[in-house]
């Protein structure tokens, strides 16, 4: 079976892509209007929402970037994962109930809709939409590039496709992505999330078992190898140091409540009372899937250090090399399929909120109304955004331009800094004002962009997004306290009471 490892992996990926096409066709029959396209008609069951929430938290980055980070910098990135309990707690205690209430009462289709309803401000809606659109372009371009590169590496290992170009791989990947996103909207995304989530959780456990069998002493022996080479790498803050690790913990914990692709899913459940089941299911699923992140990273670093593996050219090769070397071919196939699933469903979720920003939120912010025939335009704009993001990704790759990296970095951290205060305080504090929301969003964008554009390295490794989120939260509170308490619409006022 080992001789057919590449073919087996390709077969799993192919089966998954066919599955996506089928899901897209099935979802198209369930998508009758913009509400179905953007928020799945708000009638999803708890299992679907739970798996969609945790799959959104752990995108392709968790499969490729996560193990790579452990390989390159020891346990620093541990803090992105172990704070999940706090992150979900903030999301469920502070956001999930009232965001769903406002969505139900105001028929909101997107996060900017909820923000406009809460603050009665088109500026807040428009700025949130712009933030989402900027983040989406960066995220999408990196996801498309990652998908094409993995496909190229898989196909390139076969005789038939040995010389396949990256452009061809981008085209193939886009064909499937566009088909199922355009036809199925968010319905397709959440149902592929279910499969992705299930695969990721199972794969996480199987990879942990595989990784534990590499050394006779299991992962502790691998940890001892790392410890002997450089103690800091095996200690809780890794090689990047304490404040970098703690900053990641803050941004990934508190910042979880500001991820638009994630909290939008909290608007889609049928019943608010389902949150009682969704929270623990999301957390358990995430914990199982995240096992992959550390077990692969630790084993790869240890085996390279002790000379049993050749050094990697790049940290991101950690997961593919581990799968090619240590995993059973069937398991490797499953994990590669899960990787595509993660990239595909994350891309679809981002396409969805990006499309909503273009055809629904920005027109509403500017002219007070959405475009006519939203469903039709949603499908057209989904295609356009995908094509622009793909062109952007290829331009960046071949032109060695920093723009994608810049917008990629404009991802989790910037969403966190811009959206957390607006959502977390806005949904739980009557005094939160529209001016504070606008100021917090602008301040966080300026701060994050400035640190990235000018490549500013802060002392002791304080991360830009950490500084930005604390600053924007503080600024939000100070401005709100300096202003008179806003008068809320009666329905919003009542929701704030519940």
């Amino acid at each position, binding site marked *: 079976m080992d001789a057919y490892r590449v073919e087996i992996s390709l077969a799993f990926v192919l089966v998954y892509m066919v599955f996506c096409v089928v899901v897209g066709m099935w979802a198209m029959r369930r998508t009758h209007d913009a509400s179905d396209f953007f928020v799945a008609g708000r009638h999803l069951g708890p299992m679907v929402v739970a798996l969609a929430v945790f799959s959104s938290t752990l995108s392709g980055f968790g499969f490729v970037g996560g193990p790579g980070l452990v390989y390159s910098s020891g346990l620093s990135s541990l803090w992105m994962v172990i704070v999940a309990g706090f992150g979900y707690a*903030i999301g469920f205690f502070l956001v999930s109930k009232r965001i769903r209430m406002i969505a139900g009462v105001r028929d909101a289709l997107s996060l900017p809709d909820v923000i406009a309803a809460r603050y009665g401000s088109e500026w807040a809606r428009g700025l949130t939409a712009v933030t989402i659109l900027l983040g989406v372009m960066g995220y999408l371009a990196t996801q498309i590039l990652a998908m094409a590169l993995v496909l190229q590496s898989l196909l390139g290992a076969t005789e038939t496709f040995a010389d396949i170009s990256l452009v061809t791989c981008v085209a193939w990947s886009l064909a499937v992505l566009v088909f199922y996103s355009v036809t199925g909207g968010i319905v397709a995304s959440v149902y592929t999330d279910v499969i992705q989530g299930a695969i990721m959780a199972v794969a996480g456990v199987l990879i942990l078992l595989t990784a534990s069998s590499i050394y006779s002493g299991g992962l502790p022996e691998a940890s001892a190898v790392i410890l002997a080479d450089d103690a800091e790498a095996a200690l809780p803050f890794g090689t990047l140091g304490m404040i970098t690790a703690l900053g990641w913990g803050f941004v990934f914990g508190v910042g979880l409540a500001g991820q638009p692709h994630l909290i939008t899913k909290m608007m889609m459940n049928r019943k608010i009372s389902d949150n009682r089941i969704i929270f623990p299911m999301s957390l358990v699923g995430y914990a199982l899937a995240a096992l992959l992140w550390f077990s692969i990273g630790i084993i790869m670093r240890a085996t390279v250090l002790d000379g049993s593996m050749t050094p990697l050219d790049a940290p991101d090769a950690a997961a593919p090399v581990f799968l090619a070397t240590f995993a059973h071919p069937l398991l490797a196939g499953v994990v590669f399929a899960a990787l595509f699933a993660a990239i595909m469903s994350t891309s679809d979720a981002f396409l969805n909120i990006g499309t909503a920003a273009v055809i629904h939120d920005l027109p509403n912010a500017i002219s007070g109304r959405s475009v006519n025939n939203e469903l039709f335009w949603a499908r057209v704009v989904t295609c356009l955004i995908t094509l622009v993001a793909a062109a952007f990704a290829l331009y960046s790759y071949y032109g060695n331009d920093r723009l994608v990296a810049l917008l990629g970095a404009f991802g989790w951290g910037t969403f966190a800094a811009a959206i957390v205060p607006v959502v977390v305080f806005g949904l739980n504090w009557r005094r939160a004002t529209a001016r504070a929301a606008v100021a917090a969003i602008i301040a966080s964008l300026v701060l994050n962009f400035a640190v990235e554009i000018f490549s500013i390295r802060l002392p*002791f490794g304080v991360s830009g997004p950490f500084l930005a989120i604390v600053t924007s939260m503080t600024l939000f509170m100070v401005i709100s306290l300096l202003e008179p308490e806003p008068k809320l619409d009666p*329905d919003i006022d009542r929701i704030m009471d519940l």
Partner: protein
Amino acid sequence: MRLINVILLLLLAILGLLGVLLLGESPAGATGQAHDRFAAMTVGGDGLARLGGMGWVMSAIQVLSILLIHSLIALGINERHRNTTFWALLGSSAVISLAVWIVMYLSYIEFLETGASTLILGFPLPTALAMFGVFIGGSYLCVIYIWGFRRFVYTEEDEAAYEALRAAAEQPRKPNASLFHIGGGSDA
């Protein structure tokens, strides 16, 4: 003191401590350095030296962050539902997380000073506490959420009030339903 003021004070304190770090001089290798044998790896080197005497500032930031997270969670609960049971549960969660952090930090510093540490499940104590203790501390909040869901998160009275609100909102919305047709979901 009102909860919202506590949150603002915590944020200002974190910002102030970040300011102390930003104004300080970063020691060489504070964020690691290249591994001498493997290009794609970094090493931390002398952990104590690269803290540059600022370990207590970083530790204080984490203590404040734990308190901030718990204060935010209290903000998420309606004031009239914040009863003694709720505060006791939330307080116990904060105490657990703070205890995990303090033991982790002290054992980390001890390891840097002595090079020795108790092993838990094969990992040095601070690493084991980070891997298992922090996650379990956060998961305890999940247990509080499940147990308290109908007691203080979303009571049956809240649900009934929301249902009434939604039903009222449905009435004027119907004439405009051609623009955004509502899916078949119930909003209970």
